[in-house]
């Protein structure tokens, strides 16, 4: 009889009788509970958001028309429109972008590409991160004192845009730095090794590679700024503007201020107007966010093809 070179199956099983399979980690309780909590954390805000959106749509949708968008404000709710607010917001965003983008991207390039790591730059970096978290009304107070009074811009578009630009700067700087940091160091070295100086390296290699990220950050920051109300009210933007701004020194109103004004009126008709205004504002913000995503996808595809 030929002897088996190995033990019987029973013997093999005896080698590890109890601890296989290890069942200590199979208790599904904590895992399930954690998943439920996370799901709840996702669903709850979404539900809230959906309710808000639903109510605004329900109330405001019937009011939305070309007329609503092209009419000036009026004491009669049914005649009132958002044209000055819409144009004011557009001008405000344009001016804010013109001020915040070069300054913000420039500061980010300086901090990432030029500045050494001294105690001063460390302090600056911490300050910028902190500034990004300062409540917007504080920027309003600063704008009121600095732009409206000290620099005598008055309650103009210029003062409003400058205030919003201050508010956006930390966000733009942080987003741009983040984008610049995604460019691998080896790309800069490759460029230096070809005989480029720092500026050429930034312009030819680093900026093109980080542009989608920078643009995305800028658009998201602008999308936030377009909804900002507190700083504009603080600097004294008007709430009733029956004309379009004709220069940067014009008084102005903006969409969120118009909405805020309508909500505070007692007549029900104005509440409907506010809901319609909110729909317009949300549509603009969605469009801007969509543009940011589109840019990102487009550039990523271009880089990888």
């Amino acid at each position, binding site marked *: 009889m030929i002897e088996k070179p190995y033990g019987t199956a029973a013997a093999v099983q005896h080698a590890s009788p109890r601890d296989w399979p290890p069942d200590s980690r199979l208790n599904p309780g904590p895992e399930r509970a954690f998943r439920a909590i996370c799901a709840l954390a996702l669903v709850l805000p979404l539900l809230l958001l959906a309710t808000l959106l639903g109510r605004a749509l329900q109330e405001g949708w019937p009011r939305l028309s070309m007329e609503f968008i092209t009419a000036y404000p009026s004491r009669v709710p049914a005649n009132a429109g958002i044209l000055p607010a819409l144009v004011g917001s557009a001008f405000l965003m344009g001016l804010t972008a013109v001020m915040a983008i070069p300054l913000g991207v420039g500061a980010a390039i300086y901090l990432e590409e030029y500045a*050494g*790591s001294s105690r001063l730059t460390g302090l600056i970096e911490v300050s910028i991160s902190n500034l990004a978290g300062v409540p917007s009304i504080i920027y309003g107070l600063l704008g009121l004192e600095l732009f409206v009074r000290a620099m005598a811009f008055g309650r103009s578009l210029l003062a409003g845009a400058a205030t919003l630009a201050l508010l956006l700067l930390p966000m733009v700087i942080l987003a741009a730095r983040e984008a610049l940091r995604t460019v*691998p160091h*080896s*790309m800069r*070295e*490759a*460029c*230096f*090794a*070809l*005989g*480029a*100086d720092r500026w*050429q390296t930034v312009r*030819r*290699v680093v900026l*093109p*590679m980080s542009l989608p990220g920078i643009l995305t950050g800028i658009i998201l920051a602008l999308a936030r700024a377009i909804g900002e109300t507190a700083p504009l009210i603080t600097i004294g933007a008007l709430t009733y503007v029956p004309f379009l701004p004709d220069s940067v020194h014009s008084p102005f109103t903006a969409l969120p201020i118009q909405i805020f004004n309508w909500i505070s009126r007692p007549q029900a008709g104005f509440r409907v107007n506010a809901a319609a205004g909110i729909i317009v504002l949300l549509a603009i913000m969605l469009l801007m966010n969509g543009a940011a995503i589109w840019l990102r996808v487009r550039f990523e595809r*271009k*880089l*990888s*093809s």
Partner: protein
Amino acid sequence: MNHTIDKNSPRLEHVAPPPPTSAGSVPARTDAGLTSKMWVEDLRAWFGATEVLKGVTLPIAEHRATAIIGPSGCGKSTLVRCLNRMHEVVRGARVTGRVFLDGVDVYRPEVNPVRLRQRVGMVFQKPNPFPAMSIRQNVLAGLRLQKSRADDEDALVESSLRQAALWDEVKDVLDRSGSHLSGGQQQRLCIARALAMKPDVLLMDEPCSALDPIATAKIEDLIHELRTRYTVAIVTHNMQQASRVADYTAFLYLGTLIEFGETRQLFTKPADPRTEAYITGRFG
């Protein structure tokens, strides 16, 4: 059998004679009369307070390939990065000593590192073509930075890619991004990009370490050809590679040049016990 570099050769007229041999430093040995394209003298380099090159003196012979070998962290990359002044780009990095190119110390204040890097090209360990540029734009990138235009850019692109043995593989996709190429192709694109600058010296820092054996063999063949037209300094941790491609080899250990000599001689009859220990695989 040991020769010193001919100090009286016309290209070295400004070069001070090599320092006298002392314990731990080894006299330069190359064929008598061979011109050194570059001459490194008492080079010390720091990262912050850490000295990673501790006084290296070394010739880089013209129209030859010189390999720099040694265990990781011994300062090979730092050494070649000092040759085109890329070391000083790193924050907190510092260099002393002299590096002559055609008799001129490249660390003299009036030498513009940007101009130096146009003459001393570099290929890095990890292939790094510019992803936002097409293959063609990659090859022309150095030229564009100088804002100069070659008379015939198409010819320059073709000749650079041919020299880098890449032309046949990419001639139909010149306008596509270089990032869809294989690792070996990307590295040859980086070589083409360096060659398009028509450099005098080509520095290569472990150019094959991220590549498979076939791509490695291609690049080694390439180096073998390029070395006769240019001057090549190649860092490698692969001793077979050093013996295949290099005419001269320098063994660096802990920031000190232990031995320099003709490749065959260094590998068959090393003068220093540490070199012998390294090439026989007893450390590193």
